[in-house]
């Protein structure tokens, strides 16, 4: 028997925004419409990028410094990483053809891995929260299922100089038999992106009949992440994946932030205040990082193109590193937040 699982806010909100189910009808509509993301979004693109994408990058930094105990638990992340990041950014802007190129390729290659990790994290959270303790073998299967879109983009991005194209020489990748193998690999991964989550669902549900099987809320983020990479071409996937991933991230980080702040002694504010204040902070920080910082590099004599692209790349990398620590579930207060009942 199918079950949705235990939501954080409510079944509809969790399914659409955290699970990413909104992706499915929107993707269908986008594919039928046929226009590219840039054509469709037009002048609203910069606003969407600021309010969703850039705000979500800022959210991890803001969470690091507002999550109770996080700074004390991760002093290197909180104190040293920003300075290292700043120094690498300066070096990259000064050398766009050298370090800059590598940082850009690193960020773009890492990005689908980060999405996969988020899908795995969300799926694990919903399993825990719904009372399903995954066996190590099931956990491993879930991890591999989540990684399929990443492997697909490793192969699919080769032609753009990302993924395998970043590591392997383009002359070798251009060899007909290698190019054919890459196309075949992408085709196989297109199937595995959906087949492995289905296999995980079947295997883990069979092993957890007593608790009602795997919650659908755990499956949704995995399928949503896969669909971004399979249904759209590279450029549109890049835009839509970042938009949907950002929405998903902002939804879940807002819930965690509000719960943590409300649990602090002396708190007198409601959840909406905490969510609104956090989101305003994210937008302001996103604006400072992505709109002001490139201009600072221009003031220092660099071009707007290298400054903007490299700020984007370095903030991406910083975000990936911070996220790898602040969302841990095991032996972390996050686990308590995941398991907590919905506040009245």
């Amino acid at each position, binding site marked *: 028997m199918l079950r949705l699982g235990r939501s954080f806010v409510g079944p509809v909100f969790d399914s659409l925004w955290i699970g990413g189910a909104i992706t499915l009808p929107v993707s269908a509509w986008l594919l039928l419409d046929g226009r590219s993301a840039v054509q469709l979004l037009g002048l609203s693109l910069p606003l969407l990028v600021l309010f969703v994408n850039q705000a979500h990058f800022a959210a991890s930094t803001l969470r690091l410094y507002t999550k109770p105990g996080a700074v004390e638990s991760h002093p290197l992340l909180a104190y040293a990483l920003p300075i290292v990041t700043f120094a690498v950014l300066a070096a990259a802007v000064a050398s766009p053809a050298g370090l800059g190129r590598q940082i850009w390729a690193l960020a773009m290659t890492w990005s689908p891995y980060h999405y996969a990790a988020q899908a795995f994290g969300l799926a694990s959270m919903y399993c825990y929260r719904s009372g399903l303790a995954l066996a190590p073998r099931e956990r491993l299967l879930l991890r591999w299922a989540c990684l399929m879109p990443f492997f697909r983009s490793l192969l699919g991005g080769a032609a753009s100089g990302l993924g395998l194209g970043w590591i392997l020489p383009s002359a070798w990748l251009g060899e007909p038999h290698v190019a054919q193998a890459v196309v075949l690999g992408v085709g196989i991964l297109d199937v595995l992106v959906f087949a492995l989550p289905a296999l995980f669902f079947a295997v883990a549900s069979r092993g957890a009949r007593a608790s009602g099987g795997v919650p659908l809320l755990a499956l949704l983020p995995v399928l949503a992440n896969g669909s971004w990479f399979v249904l759209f071409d590279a450029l549109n996937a890049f835009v839509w994946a970042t938009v949907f991933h950002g929405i998903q991230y902002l939804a879940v980080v807002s819930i965690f932030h509000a719960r943590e702040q409300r649990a602090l002694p002396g708190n007198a504010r409601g959840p909406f205040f905490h969510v609104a204040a956090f989101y305003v902070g994210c937008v302001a920080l996103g604006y400072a990082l992505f709109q002001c910082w490139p201009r600072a590099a221009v*003031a220092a004599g660099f071009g707007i193109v290298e400054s903007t692209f490299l700020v984007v790349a370095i903030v991406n990398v910083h975000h990936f590193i911070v996220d790898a620590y602040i969302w841990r579930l095991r032996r972390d207060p996050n686990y308590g937040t995941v398991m907590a009942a919905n506040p009245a």
Partner: protein
Amino acid sequence: MATRIADRLLLVIGVAAFGAATALGLAQALLATGRPPRLLVDPLVEAQREFAGRDRERWIHEARSLTEIQPRNLGGFLALGRALADAERDAEAIRAYETALALGSVPPVAHAQLARLYYREGDLASARAQARLAQERGVSLSEDFLRALGPAAGRG
């Protein structure tokens, strides 16, 4: 104790760097345009708006930066080719367009631009080939240019 002092010191440096970069960026935009930085998605478009036709060397630098960071960005090489052609650095412009061609399918107008560059460099055979590709894909070339290329440039 020493760790705590080091942490505090790093925090101060980090906050100062963040604040200085943000303030400098705001100041730069305010001085240049009279308002805070406007929302920027594609910096190449911004650079083109700011420099193309006004500061050719700066526009070339911006386009070249993109090709350095993203060496397989077809659009970057087309922009660089156009910027170099505007500055009459034809040999370099041809190299940029040829790189774009090697990376994938280019817009029809790029074939026309490349045809003109080959012609200016005296490579008539290549100019004719590109002119033919441009025409096949719906670009209309001036009669003067087609005459200059000779009869072989016409539609097959």
